């Protein structure tokens, strides 16, 4: 394991790279909503982008790879929830609505 993998960063390079990726993914998301309006596979792509962006912030800004396992699991679980829910409701929305009816 490299030292940079086990100690908190003092370099701005990985932070800058992550920020540029976040900006690019945000602009791509904006275009997706307009170019592929109503496409059935749009939720899949959006789910992937949400997961990548959340993971980038957790890994590069919070440095979740160095954190206590509880914190790491909380971040992983929270970031994974929405992409999974987006995919499930995209394909099983009607069934989910029936389950969620009072």
């Amino acid at each position: 394991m490299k030292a940079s993998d086990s100690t908190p960063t003092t370099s701005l390079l990985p932070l800058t790279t992550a920020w540029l990726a976040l900006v690019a993914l945000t602009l791509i998301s904006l275009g997706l909503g307009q170019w592929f309006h109503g496409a059935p596979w749009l939720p899949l792509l959006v789910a992937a982008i949400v997961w990548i962006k959340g993971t980038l912030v957790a890994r590069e800004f919070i440095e979740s790879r160095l954190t206590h396992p509880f914190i790491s699991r909380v971040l992983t679980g929270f970031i994974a929830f929405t992409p999974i829910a987006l995919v499930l409701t995209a394909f099983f929305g009607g069934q989910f609505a029936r389950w969620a009816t009072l």
Partner: protein
Amino acid sequence: MNAAALPVDYPSSPAPAGRRIPGNKGMWVGITCEFVEFLVLFITYFVARSHFPESFEQGADRLSRISGTVITLLMVTSSFFIACSVATMRAGQRQRSIYWLIAGLIVALGYPVAKYLEINWNLAHGINGESGIFFTVYYYLTFNHLVHATWGILGMLWVLVRHLSGGYTVEDHDGLEALASYWHATDIIWLVIFPFFYVLA
């Protein structure tokens, strides 16, 4: 519980690799509660969306996508600046750390301004909390996030005052890192909210 049962955490004590607590435990209790609160709101979103798919497909077209994108860019940029503030503090560059923190605060202040302009735009286009289920969920979730972001901005002001008065050192800057952790978590929440209302149609 007696004192012997309470583990004492010294701020400068090095944590073993893979066991770090960025900031302090109290902040991570707060962040975990924040995540749980928003998970409940996200479930509400998915229940409403599955019951009224047409309203949610049409709703995003009526909102200002530019506003949502601007807020997202403000959040990720502010989060980046705060992360730079922590990294430069670790490197012993206190003055640069303060500049990054000020930059993060200024960019973060753009969020409530952008939200104010967005709400004015909405009202001018006849969109309010009673315009339908999509907009009710939209206002509830985004206002809730704005409240959490406001706490973060107030936290930045407090941390800035402490930083300017020499409250942080290379060995002990847990307060700065706790604030950074909260702001990054609030950023992650917005990155989830953004496609809910501005991308998916």
